[in-house]
């Protein structure tokens, strides 16, 4: 099999992993040194595919042979897809060739489980080790950890990778038992626990050997089973707290070729996924708790975003006086982000905030006009019911999600 076919098979097999971040690793470079590669502080996107997702890393599987039989996965052993496997050196030179031409920031490498978890983890680490040691590659490497592998292999992988991740796959243990019979929640969590303990150790001492400096992340599939958003977000909150994850990725379940019978065969719930990311972002960046965003079991509303939904059910906080309120509260106003909240506070040290300042800051005016007051502006419809406001503000057409089914 030639390299083109291998790349086709193994990239197609890896595309259900959504993480493509190349940021968070410590700044480093190769100016005047042997070897190549650097890490830019913000991460760089090199292309976008027609699904709207960026390409930052070369995201492939080492092999799509797999001894597991997880029904949501296109590579499960009972799936009738062609199989391929990269040799370590093929993958190394592919990565370097792409990197030199500025197609990618680095490598995202995952794999099906072949022979044994330990063997697979060794093979993944081998590619990273060759890149780092034989080619002095200083670009970004994200390795998927095989949770069942020996802890010492995970420790080794963390020395070469910028980020490690272990996928929790499904938000409930029940789901994993049903859809991924060979996987165990406890094993996955233990791998994450080990990674966090190692990261903590490495960051506690300045001279400690590096270990996964860009942290760890995980991925949860949304819509493969009946779990509601409340459970999903609770699980995410718990994982963030327990393992200090940088990110939890939510992956709307895409029906896969030759799918197993127990899975939904419908378009991926992209808008729901989008709402989950919004809620996740509010928790990480705005200090919201899941309890505030979704006090009861159920799903996030699809017609309005979670921040607006929170504001509508907490009208007592509003209108917020932009000339007096704390930054955190200003950032909770629908239509004003954290950055603009800081800008407002910086500007009001110089002079009073007026309504037109917000226009210039490009705040979302239709959203915020019912929730703020400035020296020259008081909302006219402060007494309007939340229901009426919701009807008015519901996003009838989400510009970027028009063709998404819900």
């Amino acid at each position, binding site marked *: 099999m030639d390299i083109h076919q291998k790349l086709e098979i193994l990239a197609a097999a890896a595309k259900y992993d959504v993480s493509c971040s190349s940021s968070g690793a410590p700044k480093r470079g190769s100016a005047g040194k042997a070897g190549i590669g650097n890490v830019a502080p913000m991460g760089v996107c090199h292309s976008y595919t027609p699904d709207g997702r960026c390409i930052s890393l070369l995201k492939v599987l080492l092999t799509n042979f797999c001894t597991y039989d997880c029904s949501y996965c296109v590579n499960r052993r009972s799936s009738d897809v062609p199989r391929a496997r990269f040799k370590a050196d093929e993958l190394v030179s592919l990565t370097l060739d792409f990197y030199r031409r500025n197609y990618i920031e680095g490598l995202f490498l995952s794999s099906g489980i072949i022979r044994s978890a330990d063997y697979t983890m060794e093979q993944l680490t081998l590619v990273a080790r060759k890149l780092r040691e034989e080619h002095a590659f200083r670009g970004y490497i994200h390795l998927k950890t095989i949770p069942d592998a020996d802890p010492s292999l995970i420790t080794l992988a963390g020395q070469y990778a910028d980020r490690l991740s272990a996928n929790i796959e499904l938000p409930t243990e029940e789901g994993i038992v049903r859809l991924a019979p060979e996987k165990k929640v406890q094993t996955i969590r233990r791998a994450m626990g080990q990674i966090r303990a190692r990261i903590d150790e490495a960051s506690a001492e300045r001279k400690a050997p590096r270990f996964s400096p860009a942290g760890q992340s995980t991925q949860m599939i949304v819509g493969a089973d009946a779990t509601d958003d409340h459970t999903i977000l609770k699980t995410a909150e718990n994982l963030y707290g*327990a393992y200090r994850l940088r990110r939890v990725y939510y992956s709307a379940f895409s029906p896969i070729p030759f799918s197993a019978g127990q899975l939904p065969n419908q378009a991926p719930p992209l808008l729901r996924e989008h709402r989950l990311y919004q809620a996740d972002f509010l928790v990480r960046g705005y200090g919201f708790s899941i309890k505030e965003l979704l006090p009861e079991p159920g799903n996030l509303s699809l017609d309005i975003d979670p921040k607006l939904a929170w504001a509508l059910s907490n009208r007592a906080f509003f209108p917020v006086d932009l000339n007096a309120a704390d930054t955190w509260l200003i950032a909770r106003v629908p239509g004003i982000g954290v950055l603009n909240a800081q800008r407002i506070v910086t500007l009001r040290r110089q002079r009073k905030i007026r309504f037109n300042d917000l226009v210039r800051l490009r705040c979302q005016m239709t959203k915020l006009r019912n929730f703020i007051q400035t020296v020259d502006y008081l909302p006219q419809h402060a007494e309007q019911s939340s229901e009426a406001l919701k009807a008015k503000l519901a996003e009838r057409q989400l510009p970027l999600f028009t063709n998404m089914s819900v």
Partner: protein
Amino acid sequence: MQNVHVTRFDDWLRQVTALIAAEVPPDDVHWVHDPAYDQTLMSCFDMRHVAASTALPIALIERLRLACAYLDPERWSLPYRVLWRWHHGDRSAVLAGDPEGTKLVRRAQAVSKAAHLMKGFIRFHERPEAEGDPRFVASYVPEHDVLAFVAPHFLERMGRTTWLISTPSGSVCSDGTQLNWGAPVSIPSSGGDASEDLWRHYYRSTFNPERLNPELMRAHLPHRHGVALPESRDAPALISAARLGESRQEQARPVASSPASQVYSCGRSAHRVRCSDEGLDVCRQCELWEHATYPVAGTGPSDAQIALVGEQADDHDDLVGEAFSGPLGRFLDTVLSEAGLAREAVFLTHAVKHFRFETRQLQRVYRSPAPHHVEACKGWLQRELEVLAPRVVVALGLSAATALGLSGDALARDAEPSAILWAGCWIIPTWHPGFALRSKDPAARTRARAHITASLVLARQLVDQRYCPSDTSRSFTLNV
């Protein structure tokens, strides 16, 4: 009106400093941009040097420097108007929200964005190795004059590999150690790079047709950037194929036409046992298992005479599955050695095997276990102690004492440590080391620590002196 010629930012900054000193208002200055590719003119910008010579804050210089790369007739005049106001005491002039400040901030943002996009969308082509010629070449049309911001990135990225980037406003090449600036050069478009072909294969395969969303792609990748990318030639075909509803087959066809093989193997043989199907690992007697990483069983030599029972697994214990493994464990080690005991000689366990916590701001915060957690876990502790049969059990904290069957009033932790004979062994109730380590009251910390140490000394003496529980009174206090 005065004509002022300017070529680049530090040149501009020097001139505005003089203009402000000479009290020349912005409306009296006409800025003339002179393109220049002189090596000395384009050489490295030294922020600290500039900050020292102009007495402007570094953040402001950085913002001005970015804004001055914005290609526009007002390129040099707007920043001067802003700086003029700033010099005359109007600090809001440089802030977003102010009419001119907003423009300045937006220009700075647009330039950063253009620089960032350039880092992503430049494509190098490899050329045959020739003496003195750069090996990788690229041409690119950035939205603004950002080459100076982007070149250092590629110097770091490419190491000793030689390269050249040409833009309409100049070019830069690297000999592997430093940058050399020059006039724009024309780069013949090269086709048929084998890697480019591979890259397009990758692009087509990594696309997920089920998630088709070309509007989102266009939002990220405006047309003017897209056209320059080799892979964008594939996008229309991918979009229409996905739209035709044949997405799954379309995606599967090139893959399905290649030689397939089926794996026959058994999942179980590849599965390594990292958690067992019995015992604590599957304990569901309370709800704490659900968010736990490990249940934490006791550890220590099987002939240990002293057992220490803590309250519950803490954050670190939960991560690694070992009792007293984290900062609290290190604190306990010091207290143990003060009492003349070694950690290796004692048995360490918790009353509650899982970690109870609540999540605040995405951090796990320790919460003491509720009585029903202690009750649910009691069986596990009893089994451990039955197997070990220690001479002395030190109960660290209230939960441990409760789990061992002592009622609350048996705990006189303010008094001297005392040993209570209970179910055939000595029990010494004392404070939890977490209290001695983290209590807000320093006096309470000292008292608790002393009490724990004394209790451990008492435990050691009880073991050394071989008091036999059967022939002593129910309660016993040693003076230490």
